[in-house]
């Protein structure tokens, strides 16, 4: 059943070529499996782990290996017992620390999204307006960071921002500061790392949608008396909305749960949910609470995606 509606729309079949009953059936099967297999893969490796996490989040923490009590138990009387408790959720939602971590994560992700959008839009715009070969070169530069390990690039930033790193050295040399300043383990470093890491995810969808924009529309706007700046807000921005939405989703969602950058570049008071989940899992060995945190995060993000899609649909409707 999966994806059959999609297949009907996406793959027009030459009915004369598949007129026999058996070949048509085979073509149908082929079409479905093209969509079905990846979906099956996603289902297996997203849904199953998700269910496991969900199960852990409603169980008890115990001192054992694994450190959770089973949810399903065969009793002595051979009756299946289900041990479910939602106290982990109550604990997570009541604790100020967790709530603060959630809010802080959302804030950092939101600011990161905004910054990448502000930096990425002009970049994508510039690339899409660059003629010929240079466009490919610039495009390569955007994709270039992916050629190196993400972790390696974060460590490079740590080196750059350190007390005796080149950034401090340059500032000292220019006489802007008199002694090395603390750059690492600050909010600034977290934002820097986040914006740096997520920028390509913003630029690529933006580029795709700006590149599609029909330049005649801008000429038409100018012809009707619209100055370039106004034309940008009246024509370019609304018509590249899809790219903006896609870029924001691609940055915002992973940014909320980001663990590595705040852990390596943030200070001890940089409280983000990714780090809290890690601590609960590995330092505290409280799997149920960590799982509950993960589930709450998932619910919040799903809510955001849902909201954004609704806004987008409405915007499309209103035009």
């Amino acid at each position, binding site marked *: 059943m999966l994806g059959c509606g999609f297949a009907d729309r996406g793959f027009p079949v030459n009915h004369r070529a598949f007129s026999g009953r058996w070949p048509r059936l085979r073509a149908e099967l082929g079409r479905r499996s093209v969509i079905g297999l990846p979906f099956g893969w996603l289902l297996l490796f997203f849904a199953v782990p998700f269910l496991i996490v969900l199960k852990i989040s409603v169980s008890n923490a115990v001192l054992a290996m694994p450190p959770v009590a089973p949810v399903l138990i065969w009793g002595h009387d051979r009756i299946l017992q289900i041990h479910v408790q939602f106290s982990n959720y109550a604990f997570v939602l009541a604790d100020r620390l967790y709530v603060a971590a959630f809010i802080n994560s959302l804030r950092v992700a939101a600011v990161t999204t905004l910054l990448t959008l502000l930096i990425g839009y002009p970049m994508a715009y510039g690339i899409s307006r660059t003629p010929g070969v240079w466009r490919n070169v610039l495009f390569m530069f955007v994709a270039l960071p992916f050629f190196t390990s993400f972790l390696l690039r974060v460590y490079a930033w740590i080196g750059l921002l350190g007390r005796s790193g080149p950034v401090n050295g340059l500032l000292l040399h220019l006489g802007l500061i008199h002694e090395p300043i603390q750059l690492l383990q600050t909010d600034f470093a977290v934002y820097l790392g986040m914006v740096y890491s997520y920028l390509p995810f913003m630029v690529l969808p933006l580029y795709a949608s700006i590149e599609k924009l*029909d330049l*005649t*529309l801008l*000429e*038409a*706007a*100018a*012809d*009707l*008396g*619209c*100055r370039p700046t*106004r034309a940008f807000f*009246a*024509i370019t921005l*609304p*018509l590249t909305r899809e790219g903006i939405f896609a870029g924001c989703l691609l940055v915002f969602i992973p940014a909320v749960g980001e663990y590595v950058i705040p852990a390596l570049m943030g200070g001890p008071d940089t409280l983000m949910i990714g780090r809290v989940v890690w601590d609960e899992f590995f330092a505290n060995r409280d799997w149920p609470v960590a799982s509950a945190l993960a589930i709450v995060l998932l619910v919040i993000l799903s809510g955001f995606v849902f909201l954004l899609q609704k806004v987008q649909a409405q915007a499309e409707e209103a*035009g």
Partner: protein
Amino acid sequence: MTVNPVQSNGGASGPYVRIDGVTKRFGDFEAVSHVSLDIAQGEIFCLLGGSGCGKTTLLRILAGFETPSAGSIFIDGVDVTAVPPYERPVNMMFQSYALFPHMTVAQNVAFGLRQDGVSKAAAAERVNEMLAMVQLEGYEGRKPHQLSGGQRQRVALARALVKRPKLLLLDEPLGALDKKLRERTQFELVKLQERLGVTFVIVTHDQEEAMTLASRIGVMRSGEILQVGSPTDIYEFPNSRYVADFIGSVNLFDGQLVVDEPDHCRIACAGLGVDIFVDHGVSAAPGAKVSVALRPEKIRLARERPEQRENVVMGSVSGIAYLGDSTRFLVLLEGGTQLQVTRPNFDRHDEHLEDNEVVWACWDAGSPIVVSR
């Protein structure tokens, strides 16, 4: 309905649009070469030419999207060469229509007015007026993708006219419409233009469209204007072999001028069998190599030898195409030349010529057009 004709605010006597020695180069390529052209107010001027002849570039220069490499543009006596498109008293209807896909029909039409700071209410009134004029009442809330090609074309026209421009530029305005719709729209466009008095400059590659719409046509080729004149001038008195060949169907003969008197001339054409006799002189050098253009509908066919002495040739029918309103014949002459002849079907029971039948073809001494090669 109160749509005011455009008022001229100066230079009433001079040409309305003056293109003065305009050249446009893209790198090494010269898209427009030294074009000078005057267009009068209220005229429908057609730039006609094949693809890549520079007609669209010239139109874009008038709109302000391209800056000429040399020369200047005057509109109503004002030099607008350096004026950006958003400050020119000119509007354009794009070939692709370039309707804003995220706006409704009403928003599209109102866009230009809103840029000028016209209030919402006043703009809405003008928009309704324009939509009534192009017969699109009731479509205000539609998006461009919900319209047919013909409706989109009319929205584009309304959007381009709503600001009451002095000059309207139309890039292949009817190119995307099917034949029937195109013919109807052609007449609507002319009527609209007459009512509003806006000067039209139309770019087209379709000679029929140019003939129907234009008061004057400028035929372009490789960046140059070859001939400017009324549709009749261009068709009946082409000034070059290219123009004669480009507009309509034509029989072209290369020949040599053998007699050139003030009241007649003779051109010897190999392959035709006889000299072409023309009832006027051409004042060219004797023995000059010239071309003669002869329109297919100017040639008569007969089974018997006609009585006239000059301009009579014999051949056999080698092809017949019945087109309904007329029939097109191919006549193979003794000298090996093919002659195209068109005969209107006046009568439903016209005598029919058969394939391979021997026929005489003749034409009047006033019909051939002598052009330099």
